[in-house]
Structures are given as structure tokens and as C-alpha cells.
């Protein structure tokens, strides 16, 4: 395997071709694959072994933290730090404290999820080897790409290229590694 290359990439016209290609590639024993499409292909992701269950967990935990923080601070400010008689209401008037607690829980959940998403996806990443590939820009429009990464244990440039050619792609191109 050559350190100078990130992997090799085949371009397809139809989503089905890509799905098919991924399947064969995996049958051929390739494990380090990456597929690119202009719209979500959820089941394909599933086949590539992507598990997104962490997302709801992030939301849930963040919500808990947010709620706890909000209610806690309300309690502390009104009961502990500066207890004031407001309209003869109890210091800890929990019913009145709940709305903002819920809202802030949602704030935390929402923000954490979306920001967490970017972190998980390691975005922003303005520079990436695949961008160097000719025609890759159509990955965001109407073309589908399969990339066998160089780091794949059984990756050999020629074999990989030959293998991809068998999948009757529009083109097969090498992806140079980052300089």
C-alpha cells in the first residue's frame, strides 16, 4: 500500500449501483469503505455498520443537566441565597419554577444534539482528500461514490482499481492523500 494515497474511488450514476457496489466490496472482504451520496441512504449506512443511538442519549443527558441546572439555580436563588417574600408565595414555589425548567431542558437538549452532531462528524473539515477527486463535487448533486480507503488491511491499489472496474462504474479514480 502506498502512503501517498488516501484510497480509491468509483463513481456511479444510480444509488442502486452504489448499494450493489458496497455489498460486493464487503463480500470481497473490504472493511474500510466510505460511500458518498447526494441524499441520505439510511439502510446503506446500516450495512456499513453505522450506529447512531448515541444521538438520543446526548439529547437525554443534556436535557437532564439543563433541567437540573435551571431548577437548582431557581431553588438556590429564591430559597437559599436571597429569600424574598414575593406576593406571599412560598420561597420554593415549584409550580412556577417548572416552565422555565422545561424550556431550558429543551435548550440544552437541542443545542447539545446539534453541536454534538458536528463534533461526532468531525465537522467543520474544510479540507478532505476526497475533494481532490475529479467530479466529486457531483456527490452533492446527482452522483454516488464508493471509496475503498488505503488503510484497509487488504488494500492494494491495482487490485482495488481492478475490483472497482468490475462494478461497471462511470469512472474509477485514485484519491491522493493529503499533502
Amino acid at each position, binding site marked *: 500500500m502506498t502512503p501517498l494515497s488516501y484510497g480509491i474511488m468509483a463513481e456511479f450514476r444510480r444509488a442502486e449501483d452504489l448499494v450493489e457496489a458496497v455489498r460486493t466490496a464487503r463480500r470481497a472482504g473490504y472493511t474500510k469503505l466510505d460511500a*458518498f451520496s447526494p441524499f441520505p441512504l439510511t439502510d446503506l449506512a446500516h450495512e456499513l455498520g453505522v450506529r447512531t443511538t448515541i444521538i438520543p442519549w446526548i439529547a437525554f443527558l443534556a436535557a437532564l443537566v439543563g433541567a437540573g441546572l435551571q431548577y437548582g439555580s431557581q431553588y438556590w436563588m429564591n430559597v437559599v441565597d436571597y429569600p424574598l417574600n414575593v406576593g406571599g408565595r412560598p420561597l420554593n414555589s415549584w409550580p412556577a419554577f417548572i416552565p422555565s425548567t422545561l424550556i431550558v431542558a429543551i435548550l440544552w437538549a437541542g443545542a447539545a444534539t446539534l453541536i454534538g452532531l458536528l463534533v461526532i462528524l468531525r465537522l467543520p473539515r474544510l479540507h478532505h482528500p476526497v475533494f481532490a477527486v475529479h467530479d466529486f463535487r457531483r456527490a452533492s448533486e446527482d452522483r454516488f461514490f464508493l471509496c475503498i480507503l488505503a488503510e484497509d488491511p487488504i488494500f492494494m491499489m491495482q487490485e482495488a482499481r481492478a475490483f472497482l472496474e468490475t462494478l461497471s462504474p462511470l469512472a474509477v479514480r485514485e484519491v491522493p492523500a493529503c499533502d
Partner: protein
Amino acid sequence: MSSEAIAITTPVAEVPLSRRFGRVWWFALVVSGALVLLLGYTLVSVTILGVGIWGVNIPFVWGFDLINYAWWIGIANGASLFAAILVLRRHDLRTAVNRFAEGVAFFAVICAGIFPIFHLGRPWLFYWTFPYPATYEVWPQFRSTLTWDFWAISTHAIVTSLLWYVGLIPDLATLRDRARRKSVQRIYGVFALGWRGSVRHWAYHQRAYRLVAILVLPLILIMQSTVAFEFAVTLVPDWHETRQPLHFVATGLAQGLSIVLLVAVLLRSGLRLGRYIDEEDIDLLGKLVLTSAIVSGYLFLDEVIAALLAERMAQEAMLNRMTGDYAGLYWTAIVYSVLIPQLLWFKAARNSTIAGVFVGLSIGVGIWFDRFSIIVGGLQTDHLPSISRTYQPTLAETGLFLGTIGLFAALLLLFVRFLPVVSMFETRHDEHLEKSS
């Protein structure tokens, strides 16, 4: 192999990338820009001179400020709610409308947010509602609906803007990749954060997007109710009603839908996007608007019934709203937000652009009058007759209102100019699903 195969979403992408944008757009932008200047002027003057330049007095301490706030926030919440529901239902309509529905929501929140700050006697101290460790060691008062609202608005603004942006990322990538000029590529490139459409990314992106979209649902319900509580928790006879939140949520949804319909038909004809926002979409929207109008109608009725069952003061208050100095507002509200929308029973009306614009506007206007009627007409009847007065809005207030409309329009125009108005990847996705099925 670099043939420019025309993808289904190309026309959408071409809109923001097109070099020139037509006179109408420029004209609209200039007009709304002028209104934005007016907004700035009215805001500066009210900050320097005080809210006394408005028609407010005792007991009408709130006038246009809260009317318009409640109105804008209604649009924002209505639109978000609608968008959220579509995502939740995974309804096809979402591909067509979600993008600008969320946009509308976000812009409306910005407009709404102006009022609670600048209607203060001392606006420069608005941050006192935020609990920060001050050297005077006094905290905000969390029992106040205004404090709840402070959190609600900021949350709404933060979450919807984030959601909107995250939804935009893949489409920004498309624009990046289609842009011809390097500079344009770079700009969209930065905002696309280097999105490369990896299947793995798509999976996470969709999961997160859907989840937050659903979180917005309860947020909107709480928020719109909070706005209602600002009136319902007071002892003002006409406001002191448990039904108030329901009224605000439902009429708010009608508002949101109507504005979405309005924008939809405008975009459709204006940008020739008939293919993406198609007949059925508009038709369905029309039906939804009609339904929401009927629901509002029911709530207006319910309002009367509730008053009849309530104690005497509430009855007098309701009666005063229907027959008193401000009766005009009440009836205008009913005509515009309930009766006129009945046009949409006719398919022809549902499919005609003019009718769409007309009904969309009329509901917006109608609900505005409803807020006016509730806030001013409702406040007129109080426990002590000695303090009963009247309220007249002044030019300064009206200017402020027009200003926010200008701001809203300007933001919408810029959105149309620089961003894809329908979600391209969702459209592709649908296309794909249709083909494969």
C-alpha cells in the same frame, strides 16, 4: 465524463447562484429596507425619549408593543409547530415547505424579540432578567411569566436557528459545488463546513435533525402558552381565563400556516418552483389553513361560551369587547381569520396564487386584530370603573410595527436570494424513494 447532467434539484440551486435577480426583488428589497430604516428610527427615538411617545397609559400599560409581540411570536410558533409536525409525521409536504417554514419562524422570532426589549421603560437593562452574578446580589424573579418568556424566546431563537442551519449544511455543500466563481465557492464552502455527503454523516445528520425537530414541538407549546399566561395569570377579568393558552396556541398555528401558505404561493410563482412546491402541496396547505381557520372559529365561539359560564365581571368584559369602544377589532378579527378563509373550500381558490396570498394575509391580519382586541379591548373592563380609560396607538408605535414587517420581509428576501428555499437533499431523497418504489 464531466457532462453537466441536470439533476432534479438543479433549478433550486441555480436560484441563489444566478447572477442577477430581477427588478421585482430589488424593488421589494428597497421598500423593506426603507422600512428597516424606519424601524431603526423608531427604536432609537423610543430609547431616547421613553415609551411615553406611544399611546400607552394607566391602565393600558401595554399597547402595540405587546400586541405585535404576541402576533409575531404567534407566527414564529405556528410556523415552527407546523414544520415540527411535518417532520414528526415524515410527511412529503415537509420537503416542500420545511426549509422556508423554519426560515419564517426564525425571522418572526427576531421580529418578536425586538418588542419585549424595547417596550421596557429602561431597555438598556433588559439583561437583568438573566440570572448573572451581579455585585448587588439580586436575582431575577422566576415566578414571573415574563421571566419564563425570556427563556422561551432565547431558546426558540437558538434552537430553531441551529436546526435550520444544520438542515442547510448539505444544501450549502451543493451550492458550494455548483458555484462558478471561486469566491462564491469559498463562502458557501465555509458555511458547508466541509460536508462531503458521506453515508455515515447522512445517518447521524438525519437522526439528530429529526430528533431536535421533534424537541421543538413541546418547546413551541410551552412558549405559546407562556405568552398566553402573560395575560391569563393577571387579575384582569377578561384575561383571567384558563382557556387563554389554548386560544393562543390554536390561533397561533393558524397564523403560522397562513404565512407559510402565503410564502409558499409567492415562492412558487416568483421562483417558478412549481415542480418542488406542487399542486398537491399547495392544495394540502390550503386545506390545513382552512382547518386551522375553522378551529380558530371554534375557539372564538368557545371564548364567548366560557365567558357566559364565568362570573359577572368576565361576562361584562366579553360583552364590552364585542360591543364596546373596541368592538370593531373583535369583529374584524372574526371576519378576517375565520370567515374569509372559508374561500378555501373551493379547489379553485386553493390553487390560485391570488387567493392564497389573500387568505394568507387575511388570517394574519385577523389574528393581529384578535390580539389587539384581547390586549386592549380586554383590559378596558377592570374591577374598578373609576380607572376605565381608552388607548390610541401613536405614529411612533405604528412605525415600529411597520418596521418589523419590513425587517421580516427583508430577511425573507435575502433568504430567497442566497439560500435554497426548498430542501434539495430531501427532494432528491423523495425522488429516489418514488423511483425505487
